[in-house]
């Protein structure tokens, strides 16, 4: 493997489609998504459940289940992960270059071992640290970085609260010293009260360790706090992309508008409309025209802004 020369691009997604095989059909959950992530920057993927954002995140983290179908191209830190409808390099990036903060912290920790054992596994396997004292030191460093005390190490996962679990998983994700961290809905299973805490923790750590950060969330207000760039997805399609500031100030796609409104617990959007082929958002869009029966292309507005809506034309 020849590592590509050090470029500024950390993740490059080109026309990527991901789907799951079923009996004799494939349900595509991500369709023709392209995006780029620069080194050290942070990106939010926002969308409601079923928008394919988690699958996209998993692909970038290199954990595609065996029944997945792919097309397009995915390059992570110079390693080609997906090429020519095949997953080729997932095991080269997973845990080495990318790690993932899971959505469900309570079930994502090995219930059979104590926390320190989980750290040792990662450190030994991925970082190759064998020395017991070094292991202990490194574990302590990690655990204190997320603000936990030493006594957590001798506990089992089920003895921890949700917030503590999430912090342990964050520390675990940092253990391999990745250059990219994918956080998949890091706050969705936490009390509202803790959301801010975890969001800030992730943000601070990624800044401090100079990692690229990909946050997958349905809550646009989190994106506001944590990210610089933002991608809005709906039913597997990328509908809008841009700097977070710009998007929030002036949302171009009606779905983005709905997302922003819903963060303030306001409701916009249509009730129910029959689905037709064409724009994916047709069923809920308040501003439809006949044009919407045709699938809109991704309109580029400047270098950093893209939107998939006829309204912009």
């Amino acid at each position, binding site marked *: 493997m020849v590592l590509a020369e050090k470029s500024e691009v950390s993740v490059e997604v080109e026309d990527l489609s991901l789907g799951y095989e079923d009996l004799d059909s494939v349900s595509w959950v991500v369709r023709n998504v392209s995006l780029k992530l620069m080194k050290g920057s942070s990106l939010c993927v926002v969308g409601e459940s079923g928008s394919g954002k988690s699958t996209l995140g998993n692909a970038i983290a290199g954990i595609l289940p065996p029944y997945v179908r792919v097309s397009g191209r995915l390059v992570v830190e110079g390693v080609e992960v997906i090429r020519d409808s095949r997953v080729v390099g997932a095991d080269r990036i997973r845990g080495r270059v990318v790690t993932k903060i899971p959505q469900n912290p309570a079930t994502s920790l090995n219930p059979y071992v104590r926390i320190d054992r989980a750290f040792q596994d990662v450190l030994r396997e991925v970082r190759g640290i064998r020395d017991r004292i070094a292991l202990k030191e490194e574990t302590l460093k990690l655990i204190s970085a997320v*603000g936990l005390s030493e006594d957590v190490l001798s506990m089992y996962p089920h003895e921890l609260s949700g917030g503590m679990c999430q912090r342990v998983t964050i520390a675990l994700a940092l253990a391999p010293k990745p250059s990219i961290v994918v956080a998949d809905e890091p706050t969705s299973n936490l009390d*509202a*009260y803790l959301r801010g805490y975890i969001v*800030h923790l992730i943000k601070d750590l990624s800044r401090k360790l100079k990692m690229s950060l990909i946050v997958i969330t*349905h809550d646009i207000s989190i994106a506001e706090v944590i990210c610089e760039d933002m991608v809005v997805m709906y039913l597997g399609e990328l509908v809008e992309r841009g700097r977070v500031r710009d998007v929030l100030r002036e949302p171009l796609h009606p779905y983005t508008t709905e997302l922003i*409104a819903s963060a303030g617990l306001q409701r916009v959007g249509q009730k129910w409309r029959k689905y037709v082929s064409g724009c994916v958002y047709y069923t809920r869009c308040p501003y439809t025209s006949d044009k919407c029966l045709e699938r809109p292309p991704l309109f580029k507005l400047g270098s950093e802004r893209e939107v998939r809506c006829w309204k912009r034309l």
Partner: protein
Amino acid sequence: MLEEALAKPVLRVCDIWVEYSLSSGLLSKKKKIYALRGVSFDVSGSEVFGIVGASGSGKSTLLKAIMGFVSPSSGSIEIDDVDILKVDRETRKNILRKMGYVSQNPLAAVNPRFKVGDIVAEPLKAAGLSRKEITKMLPTLIESVDLPLDVVDLLPHELSLGMLQRVVIARAIATKPRILLLDEPTSALDTVTQSHIVVLLKELKDLFGFASVLVSHDLKVVSHLADRLAILMAGLVLEEGTTYDVLRNPLHPYTRELVDSIKLKEVKEVFTIDPRTCPFYAHCYLRLEDRCRRIPPLIELGRRRKVRCWLYS
């Protein structure tokens, strides 16, 4: 007149204590853990009373106690001046029919093998309505929660979570209850659906004019719906007041943090709660040395404003 009607509470909860006994061993003594410690509040007219607390604060237990799923060790729960803890089973059942209950997880709240129509019709059936009457009433009910009519023949797993929650709400309001108990009605949903449900609940309240108790960990959701609210922690009410007052001028340090958390500001996580001290003692930045070790009394500060903090004694 209006004042009087408002003043007469529909639901009055008085000094409720709920305990769980946790047996740690056959031979060792049973440990008692209090889920609720002397909680009192009342709800009148078509008021929405919100209760905010982190997980483990006892907020769900409170609703369960009102519904009779758990029995309090002392205290009284009066509905229209009848103490439901003291009446016989039949009367109690009749009173309970005046209440609707919406729970956190719509999946657990409906029988997965019932059709939506049957689910919604169940309270009507319990009220002794004939099949004919029920079929007549169903469409209005379904429409009132913004669902298409053809869902009545679907099974729960064919609906999305948001739709299912609407079904649960439809069931709760089927018998036109005096009181609606909402136990985290939105916490399992993503932000868009969440906003839809919140809007729906608001509409329904205006339409039917029932009183309701809303329980949530998310101050944002509660503040949108509730007229008054109480902050609950470790089974103790820490603060109570109108939503406007509490949000504008939070008195208790914990409330302040909660208000901050709406804006995703960085807050401290609450790890340890000693049941013998003020629940926020370990994390309070205003700690008033010795006194704070004891549990402060609930201090009344003017009309409908209470706080449990030594700061105001």
